[in-house]
């Protein structure tokens, strides 16, 4: 079951500073560089909850990396929220020592990755730093959407893959069936899959042996200029920015000066170390090794993941390919409910953005909502978490406007010349349709795995969201369906709907595929005859009436009755396509009010009045802040 966790909580975790990871005592131990043949680097990947972090625990424990008394479940999930929820948010790297059955001592660098679809970027970049993957599959569940997605990432990264069938202690475990599924659905050889219980420790030794024997050693040259991959970075209150690196060639030494090739900045390396999983300082890291450096860097923004780090002089000529940066795909406006809190909001957003390079923002003004920010996020979950943090940590109540994607608007040209292309982040900025030639919208490829009995509902849902079926295959009683869908139909409440129509049994993964032209229009919403720009949205022309009706009906329920009746309309250009009327409030009066009731009633009215402040006035109409999001939810 994939969507069983609260998205807000998940992203929140990502955004948590990892400061406390470094707070534990810092040991200074002299480790010697390891020769390449005795290094194995791998990531542990799986669908959410299939047991990656628990497997990492056993590997850490079996190799004596952490003493038994310091051991705890999902040791690497060190952030408070990770622990609270029993889930991994940030990838974590650990270096362990293992003496194999052949008598040789190996250094293993494992990266435990998050399983949730929203953290796909985290997984794929981790994979760039290693040569192999342990593909964990819960043998009581089987292959799920992220299992597949992770395999594709691993293949992309040219990884050797070792399948691990986990949770064999469970009665429902069925290794034969799952091995068959892996071969059928994924197409990799599962004959040597290791049967493991990360809970009891069964199969852990075999796993370690398999890592040593099946995964390739890294390659690299010691006598070469430094070439290191900047895998990740985060801010630590004590040490400044911590940079996770994979050394490709050469040596990274404490005290040296290095150059970040993307922007040619120079830094003095003041610490070099590895995670075991606590930080251990060492003097240098050699080819094939994974560790960290600090260099008095103040801002995460000054480090670019995927960058190449080399010597300040006579460094490597050729930079690594780099990673595609994580691009915000979902945009919405954030406005303070109380417009006098705009400056506070600016400060909050500035601070949050410091440690989160994937979150973008710029100032926005709305006729209806005043000053706010147009913000970009990796996904809806990211959006909700940032919003939640602003509200809770900075105590600013927010109005969130309809999430939107980036449309490509092509204007009509003159004299046969093609017109200008506009990236439209905000439907409110949509130019006049008569000047628009055509509009393109982003599409995704969605992969959904679902038990047979829910397939019909899933197909209907995808169809309703303008999906084009690309593939449908079966593995036993599970169907795998691939759809080409418009991102804007998925961005908002698709997950919730999928979860509810499949009772949580479907798993889902998607990736962006590109832009395609379609018949898109801007739908505006008028409340009491006044347009509310924050409610306007881009819709497909064929679905406009339906969306407009749904929107008006929802708003009718969400807006409290007023002392007068309120027309609510949806319109395309000047043409009204849907209309509802919210009838006037007819009775709201306290029947009995005598001497003793004065105090009580005053308190009540004051409370109600405070409640009114949570609404925003549009003309004479108070619209509750949650209406801006709730109005968009579709029931089908």
């Amino acid at each position: 079951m994939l969507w069983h966790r609260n998205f807000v909580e998940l992203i929140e975790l990502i955004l948590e500073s990892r400061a406390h990871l470094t707070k534990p005592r810092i040991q200074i131990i002299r480790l010697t560089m390891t020769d390449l043949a005795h290094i194995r680097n791998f990531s542990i990947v799986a669908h959410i909850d299939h047991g990656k972090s628990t497997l990492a625990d056993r590997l850490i424990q079996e190799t004596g990396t952490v003493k038994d008394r310091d051991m705890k479940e999902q040791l690497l999930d060190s952030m408070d929220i990770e622990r609270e929820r029993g889930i991994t948010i940030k990838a974590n790297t650990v270096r362990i020592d293992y003496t194999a059955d052949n008598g040789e001592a190996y250094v293993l660098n494992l990266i435990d990755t998050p399983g949730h679809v929203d953290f796909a970027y985290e997984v794929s970049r981790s994979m760039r730093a290693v040569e192999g993957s342990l593909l964990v599959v819960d043998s009581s569940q089987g292959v799920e959407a992220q299992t597949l997605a992770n395999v594709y990432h691993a293949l992309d990264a040219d990884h050797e893959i070792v399948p691990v069938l986990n949770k064999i202690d469970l009665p429902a475990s069925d290794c034969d069936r799952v091995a068959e599924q892996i071969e059928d659905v994924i197409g990799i050889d599962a004959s040597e899959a290791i049967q493991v219980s990360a809970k009891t420790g069964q199969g852990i030794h075999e796993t370690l042996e398999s890592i040593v024997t099946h995964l390739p050693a890294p390659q690299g040259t010691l006598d070469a200029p430094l070439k290191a991959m900047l895998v990740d970075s985060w801010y630590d209150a004590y040490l400044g920015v911590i940079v996770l690196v994979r050394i490709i060639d050469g040596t990274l030494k404490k005290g040296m000066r290095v150059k970040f090739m993307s922007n040619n900045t120079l830094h003095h390396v003041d610490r070099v170390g590895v995670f075991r999983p606590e930080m251990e300082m060492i003097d240098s890291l050699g080819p094939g090794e994974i560790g960290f450096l600090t260099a008095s860097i103040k801002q995460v923004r000054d480090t670019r993941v995927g960058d190449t780090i080399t010597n300040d002089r006579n460094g490597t000529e050729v930079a690594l390919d780099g990673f595609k940066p994580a691009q915000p795909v979902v945009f919405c406006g954030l406005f303070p409910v109380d417009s006098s809190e705009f400056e506070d909001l600016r400060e909050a957003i500035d601070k949050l953005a410091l440690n989160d390079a994937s979150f973008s923002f710029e100032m926005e003004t709305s006729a209806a909502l005043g000053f706010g920010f147009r913000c970009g996020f990796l996904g809806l979950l990211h959006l909700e978490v940032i919003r939640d943090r602003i509200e809770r940590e900075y105590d600013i109540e927010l109005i969130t406007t309809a999430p939107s994607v980036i449309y490509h608007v092509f204007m009509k040209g003159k004299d046969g010349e093609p017109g200008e292309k506009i990236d439209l982040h905000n439907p409110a900025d949509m130019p006049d349709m008569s000047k628009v030639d055509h509009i393109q919208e982003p599409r995704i490829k969605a992969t959904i795995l679902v038990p047979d009995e829910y397939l019909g509902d899933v197909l209907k849902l995808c169809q309703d969201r303008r999906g084009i079926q690309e593939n449908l295959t079966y593995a036993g009683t599970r169907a795998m369906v691939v759809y080409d869908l418009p991102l804007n139909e998925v961005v908002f409440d698709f997950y919730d709907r999928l979860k509810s129509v499949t009772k949580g049994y479907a798993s889902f993964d998607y990736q962006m595929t590109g832009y395609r032209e379609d018949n898109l229009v801007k739908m505006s919403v008028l409340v009491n005859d006044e347009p509310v720009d924050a409610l306007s949205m881009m819709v497909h022309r064929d679905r406009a009436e339906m969306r407009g009706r749904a929107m008006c009906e929802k708003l009718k329920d969400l807006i409290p009755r007023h002392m007068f009746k309120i027309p609510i309309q949806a319109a395309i250009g000047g043409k009204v396509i849907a209309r509802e009327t919210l009838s006037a409030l007819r009775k709201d009066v306290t029947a009995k009010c005598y001497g003793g009731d004065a105090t009580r009633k005053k308190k009540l009215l004051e409370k109600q009045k405070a409640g009114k402040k949570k609404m925003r006035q549009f003309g004479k109409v108070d619209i509750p802040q949650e209406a801006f999001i709730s109005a968009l939810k579709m029931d089908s």
Partner: protein
Amino acid sequence: MADDWQNGGFGLYVHWPFCEAKCPYCDFNSHVSRQIDQSAWVDAYLLELERYAAQTPGRVLNTIFFGGGTPSLMSPDTVDAVIQAARGHWHAANDMEITLEANPGSVEAGRFAGYRDAGVNRISMGIQALNDEDLKRLGRIHTVAEAQKAFDVARNCFDRVSFDLIYARQHQTLLDWQAELKQALSMAIDHLSLYQLTIEQGTAFGDRYAVGKLRGLPVDDTAADMYMATQEICEDAGLPAYEISNHAKPGSESQHNQVYWRYGDYVGIGPGAHGRLTINESKFATESFLNPNNWLTQVSENTGESVRTQLQTQDQANEYLMMGLRLTQGIDMERFQALSSAPIPHDRLDYLVDIGMVEQDGSTLKATKNGRAVLNAVIRELLVD
């Protein structure tokens, strides 16, 4: 605002916290008790009166109100003692109104003459419904016939007898209510209190409502229709509304309740009683201990008053607005302004006038008929922060 209260007059409220049975809709401070030592209550009331009189010397007392609970369970001697003491402490107005709330049981009716002799000159009787089935649903322990008998006894003893009805009851239709109201008007003398049933938290009805077990309540629109019909029918019968739920022949309005709505001063004694008192140029809100026995103990030890809060003039302005707009005659904006640090913003007034919720006439501001039906919403617009 040393003498603002004089715009509303000065009254005394006496709370009697006992009833024969607890009604399932009622959240008043009322309790069922086997043993009531009337003399202990007399002593306590008299102590409280003395204490409050010392803080408000020399005033003219306009009204006394015995409320409850069921004050018709008080012995006439108890009522007499309180009235005599009050007359001794303050200057009784010539036309002092003395009301007693009565339940329409036969036992009570037997005491009416005694109350009259003690000085009571007005009865407010809780009849609640004019059909037996609904009385039962409301948990009332009397029948319509008994109520009518009690009412007849009362009107033989008193010139002024009002009664209460609760409407928008379970399974009641607009037509039912219209018929019942017409019947009530044929009985009425000069005053009627007509309350829409309110589901209060912490009552038996409240609990049932919360779990969805209180069925058949009229929907809001029907309740609104009932309210509007009530206004018209009473007006046509010569008993127009002078307050949200109170109707009277002009001149027969309850003087005591108008002290509240005109935001005068009032002493409140007895368990849970509230008061508003202007002392040394400051206005205070007072509250008394809720629990009857505790109140008795506290009075004997020191005072029954549990809370005294000084009201800022802005609070007073808001209370005046809130109470005053309940009256058909509305409020005096000059008086409001004298109390308030800020006048009611023009744009809000204009807006409310524009949508037909209030009317302005010189310095008078009043809610229209439509405005009174949604008075809470109107007040929310007008309350000054």
